[in-house]
């Protein structure tokens, strides 16, 4: 039989189509299929839900509804519907919440990448939309994929102090989370029943009729279970080299690549993790010396007292064991702080029995949290101190000498360092 030109064109067309990602035969991995995608999807369903909840709690921990200085997202509207007075018990609440948020987020990166890989052929579906619902679902997937990557990338950059993103971290990560989560919920509602059905039906990772399964699979180099071990291994590696930054001593040294892993900054009583050094915060040593520094405390009806360090030391001193826990996910174990109770300072200026909120100002020249507000429940807690000592010695300059706030369960940046002024009263 003579091969006609039409035949040749058809063959060439088929060959070209196979080279185009729009052809199902372009995707040749024998691993893709409903089983792998469903397993990864179910892991992300749990993992991302936990990320979202810990993130919302972390946001509430700043008490953004208390005062404008705490609120980096003043236009939040109904997105702050769930806000509540952040408690002071248990004292490790923020440490746990934010440690889980950041460590889990980093651990989930391989799962997210694998999930996106497993469904990438669907990006090139033809026709682009079969129905209006399908078209909207594909737009929703852009919000889902773009949103997931946006949240993971801004989070990963922020913990490494790499502020490349277009704006302040708080509003970007908070509003971005809501955009992402709306698409995530829609996707979960549409796909979870299917994923669970797939997992029940396919206890064994067998082939199955699905647009994810390659019609022309290449020779397998690894089984589907093997691929899952591979993804899990990547997650385990990230977990093991990150989680240690939430602990001290040997465990911190296991966090080989995490920003606050490795060695402590110096030794001795002040040799624990620092968020921002005195030099970075622009603290002038001339302002913190014994002669120059005065704490200004203002209270009921504008009653004001000015206290030098010597006068503060004559007030009753108390101790509390509390951690420093940062929004960046790292934390220290409990340090032994000693200083004047915030509620005793409130009593000095007319609030004897009813400690109110307090507005705290630092000597810091710059920084988003050089001024911060604490709520009355935080002021009233007997463990909340204006600390002058840590671990038995004077505070070091980098830990806030001459005086810093320390409050149980509060995010690190609300434990204001280099305190200059306290204004008690309802905010």
């Amino acid at each position, binding site marked *: 039989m003579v091969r006609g030109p039409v035949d040749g064109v058809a063959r060439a067309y088929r060959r070209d189509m196979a080279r185009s990602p729009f052809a199902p035969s372009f995707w040749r991995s024998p691993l893709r299929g409903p089983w792998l995608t469903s397993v990864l999807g179910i892991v992300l369903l749990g993992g991302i839900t936990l990320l979202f909840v810990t993130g919302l709690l972390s946001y509430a921990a700043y008490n953004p509804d208390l005062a404008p200085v705490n609120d980096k997202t003043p236009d939040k509207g109904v997105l702050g519907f769930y806000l509540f007075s952040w408690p002071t018990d248990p004292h490790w609440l923020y440490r746990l919440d934010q440690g889980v948020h950041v460590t889990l987020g980093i651990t989930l990166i391989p799962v997210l990448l694998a999930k996106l890989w497993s469904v990438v052929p669907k990006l090139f579906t033809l026709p682009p939309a*079969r129905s209006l619902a399908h078209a909207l679902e594909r*737009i929703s997937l852009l919000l889902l994929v773009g949103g997931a990557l946006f949240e993971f990338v801004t989070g990963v950059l922020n913990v490494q102090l790499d502020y490349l993103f277009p704006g302040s971290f708080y509003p970007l990560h908070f509003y971005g989370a809501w955009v992402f989560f*709306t698409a995530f919920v829609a996707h979960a509602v549409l796909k979870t029943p299917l994923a669970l059905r797939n997992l029940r039906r396919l206890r064994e990772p067998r082939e199955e009729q699905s647009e994810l399964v390659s019609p022309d699979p290449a020779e397998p180099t690894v089984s589907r279970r093997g691929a899952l071990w591979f993804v899990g291994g990547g997650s385990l590696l990230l977990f093991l080299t990150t989680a240690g930054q939430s602990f001290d001593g040997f465990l911190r040294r296991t966090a080989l690549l995490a920003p606050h892993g*490795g060695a402590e900054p110096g030794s001795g009583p002040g040799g624990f993790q620092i968020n921002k050094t005195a030099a970075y915060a622009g603290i002038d040593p001339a302002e913190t010396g014994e002669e120059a520094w005065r704490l200004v405390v203002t209270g009921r009806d504008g009653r004001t007292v000015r206290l030098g360090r010597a006068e503060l030391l004559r007030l009753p001193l108390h101790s509390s064991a509390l951690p420093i826990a940062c929004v960046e996910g790292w934390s220290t174990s409990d340090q032994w702080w000693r200083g004047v109770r915030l509620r005793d300072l409130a009593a000095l200026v007319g609030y004897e029995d009813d400690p109110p909120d307090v507005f705290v100002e630092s000597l810091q020249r710059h920084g988003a949290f050089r001024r911060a507000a604490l709520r009355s429940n935080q002021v009233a807690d007997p463990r909340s101190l204006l600390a002058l000592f840590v671990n038995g010695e004077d505070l070091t300059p980098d830990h806030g000498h001459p005086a810093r706030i320390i409050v149980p369960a509060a995010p690190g940046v609300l434990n204001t360092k280099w305190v200059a002024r306290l204004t008690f009263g309802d905010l």
Partner: protein
Amino acid sequence: MRIPLGSPLQLLLLVCSFALAGYAGVRLLAGDWFGVALWFVGAAVLHDLVLLPLYAAADRALVKTAGRHVLYVRVPAAFSLLLLLVWFPLISGQVADRYARATGLSPDGFLARWLLVTAVLFGGSAVVFVVRRRRATKQRPPAVH
């Protein structure tokens, strides 16, 4: 031509999700709207059209070169690149100055530690390879001449 609607439940769900996404999205875009939109869409485009094809092509090339032993290279290489991807700002030293000034910690160890982890990953893979091959040679019956 009439466009099919598709599942009404799915439509309602998606429109509801868009309305909420719009509410948050207006706030997300309130500042540098172009920059944020670029990051949001750019992240998806960069991942789907650059990162994924790049690592898929690298893996295909690896399979061609290493044949049935591909896993012994693929696993350590992928894990090492994963760590580099996540911790690139610290490993590359692009935030070294700010990092050192802010935290009081040394910015110098990250590259060295990443290289050491990479060495351990590849070294471990080599050990597994040798052990498995030895076991395979021992189990194989002696060749008949």
